[in-house]
């Protein structure tokens, strides 16, 4: 045994090339397997470390009515909650320099969702902020820049933020927003959050928290993405739902109800006041009217007085006039008889009457008139007095009447006010009646898009890690098989000697087994260490492009994967070794001592076709015969080269398939350029305004209204969340969405009332065909059967298309068109159109398909890394097999090659003679690799594919070309290296012995 033992190491030294071949291929297989497989747990672990370090929330609570300190307290009180904190956030349009961006403002709650300051410092007052690092890098901003708030969308800036200008004092990263390109959608600006601003709480002017973040007790100890973690968080969420949610909601409702009631009370009080006013005014009117009446009575009395006085005056005048008559008679007599100075008798009396007497008598009469005249004068005075009094009273009446007028006016006004208040009261009551309890939304980390994406990326990598090592392991087996066959046949005589000396078959075999085992174990160890240390780091680092805040990579050597891979490798290599040696070992010593009869040349099939055969030179003939003769080697090399080709093809193909997804989806199928989500509660006028805009703006060629919603579709095979699309007019659909059969791309599938059209992947997952039915969930209790009228080509998400008539039949109501698909003109500025659209009150959000396509470019970058890894592995694979083939060929055919040299073949000719074979195998390998690659690609795609996406299955022509060229290049490079080995063949030595 000692001798064998010593010889063992000599053997390894002598055949180091072969030893390295086995070592390398095993290292490659195991490294690839262990490395890629551990990338998934490593990525998760890395994510977990990162999330834990930043105290990323486990739960997030938002409410339709905002949240209050009370809610935070209630949640924090739960045992299952380690910490809860209220936080504010809100989107604004901010201006930095000349550029406007949509900025999401975030408060920085203590001990949860901690941001990492990457530069500068945290803001210290409400006029300072930090911006996220990727935004600062993208926009080339620096500390000290000023951020000015331009708008806060539908609300006043002051309702959201206390300041309108912020000084940038630092940059940060956040595990809640890991993606550099996707920070969320927004209802302001162009609808896409460009940057994040972290500010102190007092920078917000909001009265209620916008969200509550909570960390679950014990969740940190679990690794996220695991079931254990998910269950823990789910349990905590349930507890919040069961124990806190209703209390808080009720409290909030009561509070809101009270507030509404207060408002009503206030209005009612107002109404009372107005009503009192009216009553007072009415009283005033009544009083005034009474006053007028009294006054009028006074007037009447006075007028009576006047007429009485007039009558008195008349009487007095009459008395005066009567007396005057007598006076006149006296005057007449006096006048007539003035000459006489007496009145002759007879005239009056029978005596003469002196005039003097007459005069005296007359005077008596005149005097008698005087009292009457006094009476008249007295009465005139009375009349004038009455008149004055009447005027006075009339003035009073006018004043009173004016007062009434004013009062009436006041009443009218007050009645208006009252009516107003009553309306308001009605509104307030209605509002109170309509008051709904707030709705809470409890979400976990799965609501963070990057958290999900990251997990999916990890999973994708892992699935690919299952597929590829198969190739390496198979090639490893073939390499060991050929290598060990060669070893055993080289040491034939030695084996014979040992046997003759009495060594057992097993103890001789042990040498080869040990040889193979040592190479395999060493390869496994080195491979798994390098693989699981390096690959995850490379891959995770590559994801930096997508997740800039991704940092510390945790890469423990994953024993399970390492041991699995090692086990597989050892098993395969040992099997190959035993297979390679058992026949020789079984032969008896004497037979082994004789030289092995050289393998006979044999006629190959091609020789039966003399026409072709005769056209082949010796190189060709020998090559063909060699290929047939050394089948193991042929298959090893063929498999290796075709594996290399296939790997490259898969790599490039993956890239093709991924890029084609968005190209096909948005270039061929969803040909609309943008979708606009409408605000259904907007008024008709606002809707009309939006339609007018869409009709008239020349950047828009056309638009189509439709209803979009998410629904649950199911079949016995699967339950899926899918989009339900109800275009208003299915006739216009092809301008926006092409529904076509995958097999017949020219023919549009007509959308009719006969059934619905569903997308292909959905059909596959539900396992339904055209003509079959599936179930659509109408509400929580009701499902309806839908008939599949056609299956449409589609790549991203799942869709059900139905006509409004079908919709109405199923849901019993008309569809509400909440979405507009736009066909926009070429070369427009999407940002400005987006802002213009968002300015419309009826528009909620706008999404350009180009944005989704951009997002896909990020995914492509991560595929690039996979391509690189595959490229390196493919190179390694090609290297090992071609190196091994050449190595064995040169060793085994040394004499043949030396013979050629002795015959006078130039080095180039000898090389050509040998390489013919390699070239042919390379070409064959490329051919076989194409087929293998296509299948492998399909397989990888089907494995790596996520439910929501259907990969494009075709590989582009150039990818075949690149793969073939690269494979050929690998082959050429290795063969050039071997040329020098060929050149060094020692002629004399080679010819001397019989091996």
């Amino acid at each position, binding site marked *: 045994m000692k001798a064998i033992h010593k010889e063992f190491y000599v053997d390894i030294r002598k055949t180091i090339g072969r030893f390295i071949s086995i070592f390398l291929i095993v290292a490659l297989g195991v490294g690839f397997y262990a490395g890629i497989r551990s990338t998934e747990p490593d990525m998760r672990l890395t994510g977990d470390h990162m999330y834990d370090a930043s105290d990323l929330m486990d739960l997030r609570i938002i409410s339709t009515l905002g949240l209050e300190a009370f809610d935070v307290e209630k949640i924090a009180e739960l045992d299952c909650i380690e910490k809860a904190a209220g936080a504010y956030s809100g989107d604004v349009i901010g201006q930095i320099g000349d550029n406007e961006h949509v900025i999401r403002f975030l408060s920085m709650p203590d001990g949860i969702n901690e941001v990492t300051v990457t530069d500068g410092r945290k803001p210290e007052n409400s006029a300072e902020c930090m911006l996220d690092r990727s935004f600062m890098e993208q926009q080339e901003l620096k500390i000290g820049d000023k951020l000015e708030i331009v708008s806060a969308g539908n609300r006043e800036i002051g309702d959201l933020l206390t300041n309108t200008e912020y000084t940038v004092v630092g940059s940060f990263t956040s595990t809640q927003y890991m993606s550099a390109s996707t920070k969320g959608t927004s209802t302001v600006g162009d609808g896409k959050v460009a940057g994040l601003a972290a500010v102190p709480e007092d920078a917000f002017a909001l009265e209620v928290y916008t969200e509550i973040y909570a960390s679950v007790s014990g969740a940190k100890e679990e690794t996220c993405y695991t079931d254990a973690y998910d269950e823990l968080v789910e349990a905590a969420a349930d507890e919040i739902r069961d124990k806190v949610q209703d209390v808080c909601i009720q409290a909030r409702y009561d509070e809101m109800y009270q507030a509404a009631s207060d408002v009503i009370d206030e209005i009612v009080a107002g109404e009372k006041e107005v009503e009192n006013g009216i009553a007072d005014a009415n009283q005033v009117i009544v009083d005034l009217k009474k006053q007028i009446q009294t006054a009028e009575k006074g007037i009447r009395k006075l007028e009576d007085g006047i007429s009485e006085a007039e009558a008195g005056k008349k009487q007095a005048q009459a008395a005066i006039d009567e007396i005057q008559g007598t006076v006149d008679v006296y005057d007449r007599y006096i006048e007539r008889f003035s000459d006489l100075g007496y009145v002759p008798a007879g005239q009056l009396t029978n005596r003469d009457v002196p005039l003097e007497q007459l005069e005296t008598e007359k005077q008596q009469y005149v005097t008698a008139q005087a009292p009457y005249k006094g009476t008249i004068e007295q009465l005139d005075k009375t009349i004038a007095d009455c008149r004055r009094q009447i005027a006075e009273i009339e003035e009073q009446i006018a004043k009173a009447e004016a007062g009434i007028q004013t009062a009436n006016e006041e009443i009218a006004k007050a009645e208006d006010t009252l009516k107003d208040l009553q309306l308001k009261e009605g509104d307030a009551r209605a509002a109170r009646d309509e008051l709904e309890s707030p709705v809470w939304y409890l979400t976990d980390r799965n609501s963070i898009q990057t958290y999900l994406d990251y997990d999916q990326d990890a999973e994708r990598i892992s699935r690919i890690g299952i597929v590829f090592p198969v190739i390496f392991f198979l090639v490893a087996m073939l390499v060991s098989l050929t290598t060990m066959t060669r070893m055993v046949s080289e040491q034939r005589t030695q084996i014979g000697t040992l046997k003759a000396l009495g060594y057992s078959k097993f103890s001789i075999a042990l040498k080869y087994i040990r040889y193979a085992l040592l190479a395999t174990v060493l390869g496994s160890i080195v491979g798994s260490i390098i693989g699981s240390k390096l690959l995850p780091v490379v891959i995770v680092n590559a994801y930096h492009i997508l997740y800039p805040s991704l940092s510390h990579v945790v890469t423990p050597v994953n024993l399970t994967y390492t041991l699995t891979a090692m086990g597989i490798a050892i098993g395969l290599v040992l099997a190959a070794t035993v297979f390679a040696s058992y026949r020789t070992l079984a032969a008896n010593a004497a037979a082994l001592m004789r030289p092995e009869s050289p*393998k006979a*040349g044999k006629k190959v099939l091609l020789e039966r076709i003399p026409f072709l055969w005769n056209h082949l030179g010796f190189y060709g003939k020998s090559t063909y015969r060699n290929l047939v*003769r050394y089948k193991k080697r042929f298959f090893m090399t063929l498999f290796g080269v075709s594996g290399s080709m296939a790997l490259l093809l898969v790599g490039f193909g993956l890239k093709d398939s991924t890029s084609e997804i968005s190209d096909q989806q948005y270039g061929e199928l969803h040909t609309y350029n943008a979708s606009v989500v409408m605000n259904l509660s907007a008024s008709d006028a606002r809707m009309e305004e939006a339609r007018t805009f869409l009709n008239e703006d020349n950047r828009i060629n056309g638009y189509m209204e439709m209803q979009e919603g998410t629904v649950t579709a199911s079949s016995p095979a699967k339950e899926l969340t899918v989009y339900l699309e109800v275009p208003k007019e299915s006739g216009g659909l092809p301008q926006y969405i092409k529904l076509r059969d995958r097999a017949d791309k020219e023919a549009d599938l007509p959308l009719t009332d006969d059934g619905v059209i569903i997308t292909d992947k959905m059909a596959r997952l539900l396992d339904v065909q055209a003509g079959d039915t599936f179930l659509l969930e109408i509400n929580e209790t009701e499902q309806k059967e839908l008939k599949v009228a056609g299956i449409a080509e589609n790549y991203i998400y799942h869709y059900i298309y139905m006509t409004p008539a079908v919709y109405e039949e199923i849901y019993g109501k008309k569809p509400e068109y909440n979405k507009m698909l736009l066909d926009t003109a070429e070369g427009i500025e999407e940002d400005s159109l987006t802002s213009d659209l968002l300015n419309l009150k009826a528009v909620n959000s706008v999404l350009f398909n180009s944005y989704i396509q951009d997002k896909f470019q990020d995914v492509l970058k991560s595929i690039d890394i996979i391509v690189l890894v595959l490229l390196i592995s493919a190179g390694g694979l090609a290297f090992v097999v071609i190196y091994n083939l050449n190595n064995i060929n040169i060793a085994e055919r040394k004499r*043949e090659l030396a013979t050629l040299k*002795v015959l*006078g073949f130039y*080095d180039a000719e000898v090389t050509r003679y040998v390489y013919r074979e390699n070239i042919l195998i390379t070409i064959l390998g490329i051919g076989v690799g194409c087929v293998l690659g296509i299948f492998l690609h399909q397989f990888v795609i089907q494995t790596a594919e996520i439910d929501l996406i259907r990969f494009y299955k075709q590989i582009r022509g150039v990818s075949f070309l690149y793969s073939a060229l690269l494979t050929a290049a690998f082959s050429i490079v290795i063969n050039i290296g071997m040329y020098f080995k060929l050149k060094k063949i020692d002629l*004399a030595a080679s010819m001397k012995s019989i091996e």
Partner: protein
Amino acid sequence: MDSNEKKQNYKKDFVVFQDVVKLYGSGDATVRAADGMSFSIDEGDFVVIVGPSGAGKTTALNILGGMDTLTSGHVLVDGEDIGQYKGKRLTQYRRDEIGFVFQFYNLVQNLNALENVELASQICKDTMNAREVLREVGLSDRLYNFPAQLSGGEQQRVAIARALAKNPKLLLCDEPTGALDYQTGKAILKLLQDTCRQKKITVFVITHNSAIAPMAHKVIHIKNGKVDKIKENAFPVKADILEW
């Protein structure tokens, strides 16, 4: 055929070794495989080289055949100092002027007899027809057999045919009968001697068997890397009447 008559038409001193030294290895391990060999051979000679194992016979033949380079000295073939040749020039010399026959035939297992011969002839300009040569070595009905289907003697005939097809100036045979039985060996020697006589080819045959010596025009005895003695036979014996 008279050897004197022959010698008038053939070049004298066709092959000349002058103080040929070949060292293998270096330092303490240096082996003087050829230690100042000198001899001269005329064109068309049938030369037998004998000597104990390890004496330097193969070394001398390999140097002559351009398979190995010398350390010092000169080897003139038809006036050219082929000892100075290197690389491609050396290969070309092998290609155009030398035919080799080895103890272990060294046929390409993948090619049949005819192809093995054609393999050699295709690279030379002035070649003989492969079928013709094979007929001459008595293998006209084994043209399409692979080496493994031929006996040792037949294989050696193919090897000789392959060497002859190139129409070489020198035919160098290193123990061509070493692996053959007596009768077969004799037949091969006869073939070589006949070839030498009929084709103006200078033939060198290394052998352990000094009984073959009478066949040769010249017998070179080599010992310890030196030419021990050279014996000339005025009348070489024909191989078929030779007994050993």
